[in-house]
């Protein structure tokens, strides 16, 4: 139970890494797979397969961009992106696998607890790209090569700066209960989004479920995806985003939209977002190639430059405009607890928010 001795400072420094520790600390049963490079033989085999199916919880624009850049680099391999919320992706894969439909090659989820379940089912293929072994902290990948953290997600507040000035904006979760925000806030749904599932779990754990009971009385606009609240505040439909994809608010701000992020004083919810290669992948080589490329420098730099998200790749160069992860007070991610509590989280959430 090494994680009990980790002090809060370390957690903050590592930024959301505890999750990885918990997930990937399972004892080794076999020798770890060798680190593999992108070889001409792999590219050749992947091109023969001609396609890769990528189920992902990434925001659609970035996922498709990733796919198109990959297609340009490896002509002849089509990337089909299936985007939905992490919880829906999880449901979809379960449903398809139960009916013996093995359509997916690579999955990116925003909820580490899914990896626990898939590992238990034995659905994951072991594959370690050499960049991951060389440049990723061990807490960011499974030693057996079954899962690799692709990106780290935070769920801060967002505001529409036309509707609320930064000085008047809510700075803490407690502020959101102020009557002046009634009917002016939007949030995502934990039964849809992995980011929101983790955020809901962390907020309920740290602030108590009665916090949500009070928040639900604030007449909140309830959307589904974590990628939707940033868009709703950009539209001006609501002034404040309670949770959602912080990176989209930053992207919107950089594109000239009247939006900004706020990191709440109690701590910002966080979720590491792992990718896996499925054992029953219909395009195993193209899947490997995509999994490798996505976690190598090029894919990761795109994650920083285009998607404005946090990369676990130590060689990827940060681009100014996004607050460093180590400078944000983060809540603690706990995938094992989320895996156990997921149903309870959904049940209580529905009890308070009615949907």
């Amino acid at each position, binding site marked *: 139970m090494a994680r009990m001795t980790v002090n809060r400072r370390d957690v903050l420094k590592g930024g959301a890494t505890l999750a990885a520790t918990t997930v990937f600390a399972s004892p080794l049963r076999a020798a770890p797979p060798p680190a593999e490079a992108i070889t001409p033989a792999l590219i050749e085999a992947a091109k023969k397969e001609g396609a890769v*199916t990528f*189920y992902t919880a990434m*925001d*659609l*624009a970035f996922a*498709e*961009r990733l*796919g*198109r850049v990959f297609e340009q680099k490896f002509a002849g391999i*089509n*990337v*089909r*992106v*299936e*985007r*939905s*919320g992490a*919880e829906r992706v*999880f*449901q*979809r894969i*379960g449903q*398809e696998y*139960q*009916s*013996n*439909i093995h*359509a*997916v090659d690579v999955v990116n989820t925003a909820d580490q607890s899914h990896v626990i379940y898939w590992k238990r089912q034995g659905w994951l293929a072991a594959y370690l790209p050499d960049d991951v072994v060389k440049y990723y902290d061990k807490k960011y990948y499974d030693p057996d090569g079954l899962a690799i953290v692709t990106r780290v997600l935070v769920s801060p507040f967002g505001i529409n700066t036309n*509707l609320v000035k930064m000085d008047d904006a809510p700075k803490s979760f407690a502020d959101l209960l102020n009557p002046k925000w009634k*009917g*002016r806030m939007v949030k995502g749904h934990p*039964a*849809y989004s992995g980011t929101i599932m983790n955020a809901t779990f962390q907020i309920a754990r740290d602030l108590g479920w009665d916090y949500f009971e009070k928040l639900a009385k604030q*007449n*909140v*606009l*309830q*959307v*589904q*995806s974590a*990628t*939707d*609240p*940033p*868009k*709703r505040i*950009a*539209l*001006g*439909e*609501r002034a404040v985003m309670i949770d959602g994809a912080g990176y989209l608010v930053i992207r919107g701000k950089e594109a000239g*939209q009247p939006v900004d992020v706020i990191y709440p004083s109690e701590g910002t919810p966080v979720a590491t977002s792992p990718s896996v290669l499925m054992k029953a992948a219909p395009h195993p080589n193209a899947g490997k190639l995509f999994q490798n490329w996505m976690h190598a420098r090029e894919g990761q730099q795109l994650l920083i430059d285009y998607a404005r998200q946090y990369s676990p790749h130590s060689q990827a160069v940060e681009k100014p405009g996004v607050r460093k992860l180590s400078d944000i007070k983060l809540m603690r991610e706990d995938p094992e607890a989320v895996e156990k509590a997921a*149903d309870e989280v*959904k049940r209580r959430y*529905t009890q308070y*928010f*009615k*949907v």
Partner: protein
Amino acid sequence: MTVALPATRAQRRFGFDLTKPVLYLFAAVLCVLIVLPLSWLFIYSLTDQKGAFTLVNFYRLFSESSFYDPLVTTFIISISSALICCTVAAPMAWLVARTDLPFAGLVRALVTASFVTPPFLGAIAWELLAAPNSGLLNQIFRALTGAERDEHLFNIYTVEGIIFVIACYTFPYVFVLVANALDRTPGELEDASSILGGGRWYTARRVTIPLVLPALLAGGLVAFLQAMTLFGSPAILALPAGFHTMTTKIWSLFQFPPKPELAAAASLPLLVLTVLLLRAEHMILGRRGYSVVGGKYGAPRLIPLRAWRWPAFGVCTAMLMLPVFLPYAALFNAAFSPIATTFVTFKTATWQNVHFVVFELSAMSLALKNTIILGTSAATVGTAIALVIAYVTTRQAVAGWRVLGFLATAPIAIPGIVLGVGLFLSYTREPFVLYGTLWILLIAFVTIALPSAYQQLQAAFRTIHPELEDASRILGATRLRCLWQITAPLLRTGIVATWCFIFVGVMRELSAAIILFTSQTKVVSVLIYDLNESGDLGAISVIGLGMLFITLAVVIAVNRIPGFGTVRFTT
């Protein structure tokens, strides 16, 4: 006559009447289509998660407010929107069909446009228009009145908002049924009334209205059931507002971990209610006969509106602003605007969304292909099945025709989402493993379309007097031959309309598809719903406009195919 009889008799001797085998085959297919998923639903509703018998699902349904509230909300929404549909659509249909309303053809075309608009697309468009803060209409309202930032004229995220949006895209059902009935009402009956001294309004009241009453009742019923079983619009508008309708509640029961037994139980009240309503309709209409297309009637006469012509046209246009002009304007704006609810100008207009949908959205081409394959095949198969059943039931051609009619009507009571689950339960196990293929979606779409298709064709059959078929039968034709050579040509308009109706229905269908799709068998409606959940309104707008274009193109093309032309039967 005397020449024809011996000749056909000779032919009959060597021919074999395939009628019975063919009809029984249809009955068998129907049984599998409908009875299989329904049985699974019944079984599930009466079992617990371990498979043991229990009534606890029903107990929870009627004791827990999280089930009871959506049920009440659903009834409020369905009744209100059905009433609105009838009040708006029936007068409009009368104006178009029986008066000298200017541009009546245009009004019909616009009603068609609102019909081919998927309700979920309409709901999204109305979000763009009437969301309390960002809605375009509310922005205009604030600009005109100088109202405060938080004030709004419309709030689409309310029960009233949902009723309105559902009525917008359900009223065409009533309109089409009533207008068709009015088109078919023979002028002679009204003339007779006039000749006997009945005034224009007396004639309308005593002759015309009773003649279209069955169509109006059927229309109101269809509108009610549509509103009750719709999934997309409430999912898009009610969930953000924090309440459920029955369909969204059922849908939420299938999220991980799925509770199909509760969902099955929750769908049964809807089934029972529908059956009761259909019985009520039957009792009201009783045994009155409405055979109005024979071989010898003339075209109906148009009533001159005189000074009311243009005001009437103005009212129709204003009404059609709501389901057609405004929503498509909002979608058009969102398609080319960098932010969906900012008014686009020449300076800010962008091709970004179009570029994204055409060149980047990798799920698009497959979804489009699947949708078109499913649309055309479901329309063809569905029309064929509905035609045969409608014939059998109106002419009572085989024993057990009542059962056949019931089976064809039964799916109307099953919300698409519940049917989706029934099919999912039926076709993910041996011997029919169809999940993951387009077949399961085809079955779903045909089953869902069947009740309306059947009702439409049955209504068409009822208006054709059996004397025309009897003539053919007397001359020695088998039932099938008579159906093919006499009845089908007479029904040409109805058949083409039904085909288009099912095709459009596939475009509109979301609730079953959302349970049954896999990544390989995604359809456009599911893609749009996905995009809505992640708030990609620009992409939705581009796809929505594209969808309208494709649907209209197909509908127009089908109407142009030689032999499929829209022919009026006024021999």
